């Protein structure tokens, strides 16, 4: 899109990194929580930070379409999704503590290892790209891996879903940090999230109809492969 040259000063870099780091810290905070409502609130905070990151990128890249992404992240992921999940948890009477497959301490250590891994992978590979891209990419990859870690180490369907959405936050962070990536991708991502959320709702009700709990440990007993 034609426009004036983007404003890239040291301050822009620093702010972008600061916001990206906030998203990453929220990812760690997600791993740390033991209560389901705290998880939902932390996820809302992460989405808020993501919206801020998208808005800032829109400002410094002079790419107005990213404001739309920021708005979607703000309204949908920071408000509607946590609210809807909150309502689901209350309505279905789901167990309010987070059941973990690995203790929280070890999970956090694994999280730090993943962050170090992301940095090790991304920095050498992007040697020729601008500093903004490198740091943002490393942070985005860390957020993605942390979301993945959360999905692996949590046994409740709601927290798995939140982990998946945290993973998506990382993906969107990567996409907005990539300079000039076209609109199609952004709206499409948001579209997918929208449809996915509708599905989640359907699933939760169906699962509830079938099972009494959303503990995936019970779900696993029906491993059709044993036939």
């Amino acid at each position, binding site marked *: 899109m034609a426009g004036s040259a983007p404003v890239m000063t040291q301050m822009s870099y620093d702010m972008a990194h600061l916001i990206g780091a906030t998203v990453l810290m929220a990812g760690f905070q997600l791993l740390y929580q033991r209560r389901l409502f705290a998880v939902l609130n932390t996820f809302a905070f992460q989405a808020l930070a993501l919206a801020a990151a998208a808005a800032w990128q829109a400002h410094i890249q002079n790419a107005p379409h990213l404001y739309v992404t920021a708005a979607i992240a703000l309204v949908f992921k920071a408000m509607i999704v946590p609210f809807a999940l909150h309502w689901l948890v209350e309505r279905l009477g789901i167990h309010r503590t987070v059941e973990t497959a690995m203790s929280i301490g070890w999970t956090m250590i694994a999280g730090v290892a993943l962050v170090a891994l992301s940095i090790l992978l991304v920095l050498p590979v992007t040697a020729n790209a601008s500093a903004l891209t490198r740091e943002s990419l490393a942070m985005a990859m860390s957020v993605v891996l942390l979301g993945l870690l959360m999905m692996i180490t949590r046994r409740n369907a709601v927290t798995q879903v939140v982990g998946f959405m945290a993973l998506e936050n990382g*993906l969107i962070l990567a996409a907005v940090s990539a300079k000039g990536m076209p609109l199609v991708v952004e709206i499409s991502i948001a579209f997918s999230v929208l449809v996915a959320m509708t599905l989640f709702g359907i699933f939760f009700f169906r699962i509830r109809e079938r099972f009494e709990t959303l503990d995936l440990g019970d779900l696993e007993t029906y491993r059709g492969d044993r036939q």
Partner: protein
Amino acid sequence: MIGHLSQLPGADNPLLWILGVPLGSAGFLAVLRDWRVAAWVNVLASGVTFASSLVLFEHRPEANKLLFIDDFNIYLVVLTAFIGLTTAVFSAAYIARESDAHRLSDLHLRFYHSMYQAFLFTMLLALTANNTGVMWVAVEAATLTTVLMVSLYRTREAIEAAWKYFILCSVGIGLALFGTTLVYLAAQPVMGDGADAMAWTLMIKRAGEFQPDLLNLAFVFVLVGYGTKVGLAPLHSWLPDAHAEGPTPISAVLSGLLLNVALYALLRFKMVIAANGHTLTPGPLLIMMGLSSLFLSAFMLYRRGDIKRLFAYSSIEHMGVITFAFGMGGPLANFAGLLHMTMHSLTKSAIFFAVGIISQNAGTKRIADIRGLTASHPVLGWGFVLAVLAIAGLPPLGVFMSEFLVVSSTFARAPLLAVPLALGLLLAFGALVSRLQMMAFGTPPLGGQSHGEAGTVSSILALTPLWVHMSLVLVAGLYLPAELVSWFQTVARLLG
């Protein structure tokens, strides 16, 4: 966004019909109340789509930033539209019986037909997209539509299958998006910002200038992401459940078409990698994943008790062989892989057509309860025998040809690898043939429902697609049209 709208195909462009008809009929079918009419609208829409795709042979539209047709996706588009049509025909018959047996309600059926067309639309969009982002969106939308359909029967197993499918494939898709972003980042310094850096046709020309390390990292993500959707081991655990629990027409299109589309996406990226000379060759990775899929499924085939699950594992096996072929690389192996993709689609969907009727007749999906098919239902039974022998790799059927090409090219280039390959293929062959023998021959169970083979419309409808597919596979085993061969060869060369 306005800029992209101008890229939509005009009325004389066959792509408009190919994409517009499924999309429009999806919307129409969502509101249509009578499922009987809906089934025929479904067939009609698929027919129009198929006819439009045939036009592509005559007149290839110009590539623009959004959509394009080249030697790789032309035959895949036609194949998808064709199998979409035959499956729609089969579905009309199958659904009629499901509704009579009260296994599906009217609302479910309306939803089913609408999602079927939506699914076809997303697959065709993924195949014809010239933008990595649009392709990604289409694959994700395809996953979403099929997840809903897998859980259609609302049983415990169906819901678990759909949940597993959803979670695993969504994570895979997410990682694929990350890979896509990385590819864009590799392309952006060379090609500038914006849609140019995401267009296949433009990227392939300048891929040599992309940074190799970044492409390597990107390909790993793409391989894990789209590889999950292809069903490569160890990312395959969603496949048997998802393919087994949905309605049979859905299993047919999942095994026959969606796996191909995911593999197509993977191969497009591989082409970019191959065009850049300095990247790590992804061959060993693909070979490893292909062989592990092959062996894992070959062993699992022996212990399956559910008929649909059996053939779902067979899909994993064949996808493994195809991936192995593309991992080997070189003109012959790539050609074999492309041919195998086509043959497998036709054969696997034919098998699922047969399986659908069989399980409806027998009232069960357990292999142990199905016996003596050739005696009780000759047309169906012998069609089933032919199909299973085809998928097991017996000559002179098409699948044998492609498997033979893979094995021989592997012997020529890396004889050590050919041993496990041949071993895996033989194991699978043994499992399938032994199961086939149990089901097709012997005396049928007493008291089983034995519908006469009288030419009721419904049974003709159900059996025709099976025989049409099998005749195509038989012909392809003996003779391939020259145009198809030349397309395969071009793509084989591009794949490196």
